[in-house]
C-alpha cells in the first residue's frame, strides 16, 4: 500500500473535479442567479484541497493493482463529499450535510434517488449541477467498468471480455487504457449530444433538453421537474428517452466494436443484449396487460406501461406516472426487473444482465445433468464456453448481493420505523442504482431518517462499485502489508 501516492492521485482527481464546478457557475452567471457564490466557494475548497494533496505529497512510487481498490473507493467517496459542497452551501436549498451527500452520491452513482423537492422552483444552476453530476458519474462508471475494474479482476466487464462470444471477446478495446477511455468518452459524448438534439426536436427547451440528455445516457434518472418526464406529457419525449435508455444500457465495449467496425449486427448477435431486450419485452407486456385490465388507472395503458417498464428495468428511474400505486404485481415486477438491470459495461445498475443470464443457464445445466447423469454440459454463452472459475465468481457476486441486500433491509427496519415495502424498495432502488422506490420512497427520500439515508448511501456505493471493490477494503487481509 502506498498511501502517499494514493493521496496524490486522489488530489489530482479532486483538482480536476473542481474544474467541473465552473460549468454550473457559468449557468448561474447566464441566468443571473445568486448561487454563483456557493459554487465559487465550493470550487475554491475543492481545488484547494486537491492542489494541497497533489503538491504536498511527493512520491515516486508506482501504483500497484491492489491500490486500485482504494483509489476507486476514494474516488467515489471523495467526489461524493466534495460534490456535496455546493448543495450544502446554497441557502435556498437548505440541505443538511447528510442530504447534500446523499444527493451528490445519488448523482455520481447514477442512482437518481433524490431528497430534494420543489425542483421546478429551484435555481437553474443547481438543477444543472445535479444533472451534470449524473453525467460525470456515468462517464466515470464506464471508464471504471470497462477499463479499471477489469484490471482489479472484478466485475462484469472482465467476465464479459473473457467469456462473451464474437467481436468483443479478446479485445482490450485498444492497446492502451488511456486510448480506451478516450474512445469510450467520445461514444458517450456523441450519445449525449445526439440525445439532447432529439429531446429538443421532441419539444423540450434547450436547458431541459441538455439536462435530461445528461441523466438519460447516464441511466441516472434525475429530472429538472418534480413530475420527472411526466411534466412534458409528450409521446415524442418519452420515445426519445426510451430509445436512449435502452441504448445506454448496452455494453459500451460492444458500442465501440459495433461503431468502429460499422457492424450493426454485433448488437443482435450479442446474447446479453438479446436477453435484455427479451426481458424488457416480457416485463412491458405484463405491465401493459395489468394496466389494460384496470382501465381506471390510466388513460393510455400501453404508453405508460412500456415507458415505465423500460425506465425502471434499465435502472434509469424516470417516471411519467406514479407506478407505486399501480395494482397487483406491477410495481414489484418492475422493481425485480431492475435487479437484473442492464448490460455489464454500461451505465446501468443492478446485477447486470449477463450474470442473470449465466445463473439461468447454470440452472438449466443442473436440470440437464439430472436427466443425463453422465452428460457433459458446459455453460455456453453463444458459442463461447464460460469457465467454472467465472461461474464461481458470478455465484459469489450473487450471494454477496443478496446477503448485503438482506442485511441492509434489516438494518433500515431496525433503526427507523418504516414499513417493509418501503424498506425493501428503498434498499433495492439504491443497491440497483435505480432511484425511485415504492411506498414512502416512491417520489423522494426526503422523509427518511438520517440513519436510513446513510445506509442507503452505502447501498448506492456498493451497488455501483460492484460490491467487491468496497468489500475488499473491509477485510483485514487487504490492509496487511
Amino acid at each position, binding site marked *: 500500500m502506498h498511501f502517499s501516492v494514493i493521496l496524490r492521485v486522489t488530489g489530482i482527481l479532486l483538482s480536476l473535479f473542481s474544474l467541473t464546478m465552473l460549468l454550473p457557475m457559468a449557468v448561474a452567471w447566464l441566468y443571473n442567479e445568486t448561487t454563483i457564490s456557493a459554487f465559487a466557494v465550493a470550487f475554491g475548497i475543492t481545488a484547494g484541497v486537491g492542489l494541497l494533496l497533489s503538491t504536498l505529497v511527493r512520491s515516486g512510487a508506482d501504483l500497484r493493482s491492489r491500490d486500485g481498490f482504494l483509489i476507486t473507493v476514494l474516488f467515489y467517496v471523495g467526489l461524493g463529499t466534495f460534490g456535496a459542497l455546493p448543495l450544502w452551501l446554497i441557502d435556498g436549498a437548505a440541505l443538511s450535510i447528510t442530504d447534500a451527500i446523499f444527493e451528490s452520491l445519488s448523482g455520481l452513482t447514477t442512482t437518481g434517488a433524490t431528497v430534494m423537492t420543489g425542483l421546478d422552483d429551484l435555481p437553474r444552476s443547481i438543477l444543472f449541477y445535479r444533472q451534470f453530476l449524473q453525467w460525470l458519474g456515468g462517464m466515470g462508471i464506464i471508464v471504471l467498468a470497462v477499463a479499471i475494474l477489469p484490471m482489479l479482476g472484478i466485475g462484469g466487464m472482465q467476465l464479459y471480455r473473457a467469456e462473451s462470444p464474437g467481436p468483443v471477446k479478446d479485445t482490450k478495446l485498444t492497446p492502451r487504457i488511456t486510448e480506451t477511455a478516450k474512445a469510450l468518452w467520445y461514444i458517450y459524448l456523441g450519445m449525449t449530444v445526439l440525445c439532447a438534439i432529439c429531446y429538443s426536436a421532441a419539444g423540450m427547451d434547450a436547458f431541459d433538453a441538455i439536462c435530461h440528455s445528461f441523466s438519460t445516457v447516464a441511466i441516472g434518472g434525475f429530472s429538472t421537474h418534480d413530475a420527472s418526464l411526466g411534466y412534458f406529457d409528450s409521446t415524442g419525449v418519452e420515445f426519445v428517452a426510451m430509445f436512449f435508455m435502452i441504448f445506454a444500457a448496452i455494453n459500451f465495449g460492444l458500442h465501440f466494436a459495433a461503431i468502429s467496425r460499422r457492424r450493426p449486427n454485433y448488437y443482435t448477435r450479442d446474447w446479453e443484449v438479446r436477453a435484455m431486450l427479451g426481458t424488457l419485452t416480457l416485463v412491458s407486456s405484463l405491465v401493459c396487460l395489468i394496466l389494460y385490465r384496470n382501465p381506471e388507472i390510466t388513460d393510455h395503458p400501453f404508453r405508460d406501461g412500456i415507458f415505465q417498464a423500460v425506465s425502471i428495468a434499465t435502472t434509469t428511474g424516470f417516471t411519467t406516472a406514479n407506478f407505486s400505486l399501480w395494482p397487483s404485481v406491477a410495481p414489484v415486477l418492475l422493481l425485480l426487473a431492475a435487479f437484473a438491470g442492464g448490460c455489464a459495461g454500461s451505465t446501468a445498475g443492478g446485477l447486470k444482465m449477463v450474470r442473470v443470464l449465466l445463473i439461468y443457464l447454470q440452472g438449466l445445466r443442473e436440470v*440437464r445433468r439430472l436427466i*443425463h*447423469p*453422465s*452428460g*457433459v*454440459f*458446459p455453460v*455456453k454463452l453463444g458459442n463461447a*464456453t464460460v469457465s467454472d472459475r467465472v461461474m464461481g465468481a458470478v455465484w459469489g457476486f450473487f450471494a454477496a448481493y443478496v446477503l448485503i441486500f438482506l442485511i441492509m433491509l434489516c438494518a433500515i427496519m431496525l433503526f427507523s420505523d418504516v414499513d417493509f415495502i418501503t424498506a425493501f424498495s428503498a434498499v433495492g432502488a439504491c443497491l440497483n442504482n435505480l432511484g425511485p422506490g415504492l411506498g414512502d420512497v416512491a417520489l423522494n427520500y426526503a422523509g427518511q431518517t438520517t440513519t436510513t439515508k446513510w445506509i442507503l448511501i452505502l447501498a448506492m456505493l456498493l451497488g455501483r462499485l460492484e460490491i467487491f471493490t468496497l468489500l475488499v477494503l473491509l477485510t483485514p487481509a487487504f490492509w496487511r502489508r
Partner: protein
Amino acid sequence: MKILILGAGQVGSTLAENLAQEAFDITIVDQNPARLAELRDRLDIQTVEGQASHPDVLRRAGADDTDMLIAVTNSDEVNMVACQVCYSLYRTPTKIARIRNAAFHGRDGFFSQDHMPIDVLINPEEAVTTRIKQLLEHPGALQVVDFADGAVQLVGMKAFYGGPLVGHELSFLREHMPQADTRVAAIYRRGTSIAPRGDTVVEPDDEVFFIAATKHINAVMSEFRKVERPYKRIVIAGGGNIGLSLARSIEDKFSVKVIEYSPERCQKIAERLDHAVVLHGDATDKDLMLEENIEHTDMFCALTNDDEVNIMSSLLAKQLGARQVMTLIGKPAYVDLVQGGEIDIAISPQQATTSSLLSHVRRGDVARAHTLRRGAAEAMEVIAHGDARVVGKAIGDIDLPNGVTIGAIVRGKEVLIAHDNVVVEPEDHVILFMVDKTRVRAVEKLFQVGFGFF
C-alpha cells in the same frame, strides 16, 4: 501414369494398395522406414524415406516426372508446402492434398496456382461424414452416392419381405410406379452378381443397386422393403474428428447423443456442439446405454478409432434394442466379416477417401467415381465428348462389357434414366455401374476420344 503419394498412414497405404492393383506406378514417401518396408514387401511400389516437404526428398522420389502428387501426411502444413514445392520446382501437373483443418477451407482463391497451388482438396473425415449423413437421410440404405451434383443418386440396399416388388419381376416396377423412373444397376444374390433384366425376379435378401433422380429415391426404396420410419434419435459412440463433425452437421435435424471416453475431449466437444448431448463414458458400457434409452435409438453409429470397440459396442447396442447400427471399420478384413450380420452397415473410412480420389486417376473425362461393395465394384460419372465411341448410339446398341450397366444420363439439368432407346449425345454425363473393377479399362476405351477420327 506415375503417382507420388506422400505419407504412408492409413489413407496413404490404402490408396497405394488400391492404385497399385490398377497398373499405376506408385512411389510413396514417409519418415517411418518400418512402415515403408512393410508396404514394399506387400505391394509392387517404390518407397522413399524422408521428410515429405523437402525438395531433395521429393526429387529422389521422382517428383520431376510425376503426373500426380497426392499429399496425405498427418500435417496440413507439410501437405501444402509439398504441393508448393512440386509446383514451383518440378511443375507437377496435378496436385491433390489432404487439408483437414476447416480454417483453410472456404477461402476463395487461396488454393489457386498463384497462391497455394493445390488442385484438389480432400478431407477424409468430411468424406466419411457426408457418406454417413446420406445414409441417415435414407433409412434402410446400405450405401448412397451422389452424381451430377446430387441430381442423381445410386443407392445400394437389401430387399426384404414386405416390399411390394419382392417376389416379382423387375419389369413390374414400371407398372407399379409409373411416375418414378429408375434403373436397377445390379443385383447381388448371396455375394455374386446377377445381371438384372426385365424378367429377373427379386428375392428377399438380395442386395440391390439402383439409380434414380434424387427426389424419387425414397419412393423406389419403398418398393424393395417396408417403408422405414425416418430416423430421429441418433447415438454416436466416439467423439473423435468424425464423430464430432457428424454430430455438428446433423444436430439440427436429429436428436443426437455423443458418447466419448476421455473427459477432456468430452469437455471440448461439448463446447463445440449446440444441441447434441455429450455423455462421458465407455462406448461399450451397457449401463450407460440403458440409462440413455438405447432401445429407442433409431441409429447407433460406432465411430471410435478402434475397430474392435466399434464392433463390440455396435453388437451390444443392437442386442439392447437399437433399431439400426452402423460401424466404422478400418481393417478391410473385418468389413466382410461383419456386414450383413448383426451390424447393418459397415463404413470404411479408407474407401470413402479412395472414392473421392478415384475420379482424378481415371482416364477420360470422369466427373465422379465411387467405389462400392468394399472396393470390388465401382460407379462412374463420365462425360461423353464429341467423337467418343458411345456418342450418337442408342444405349441398347452400345457394346458394353459384361457386368457394366449404364444407369442414367444427365443432359444439362435433365435426368434421363437409361432405357435402351435413349441416344447418347455429346457432353452428356453418363452414369455407369461396374460390378467388377477390372472392367474399368474397357469402359475408359468406350469414352476415349480416338485418334482415328482426326
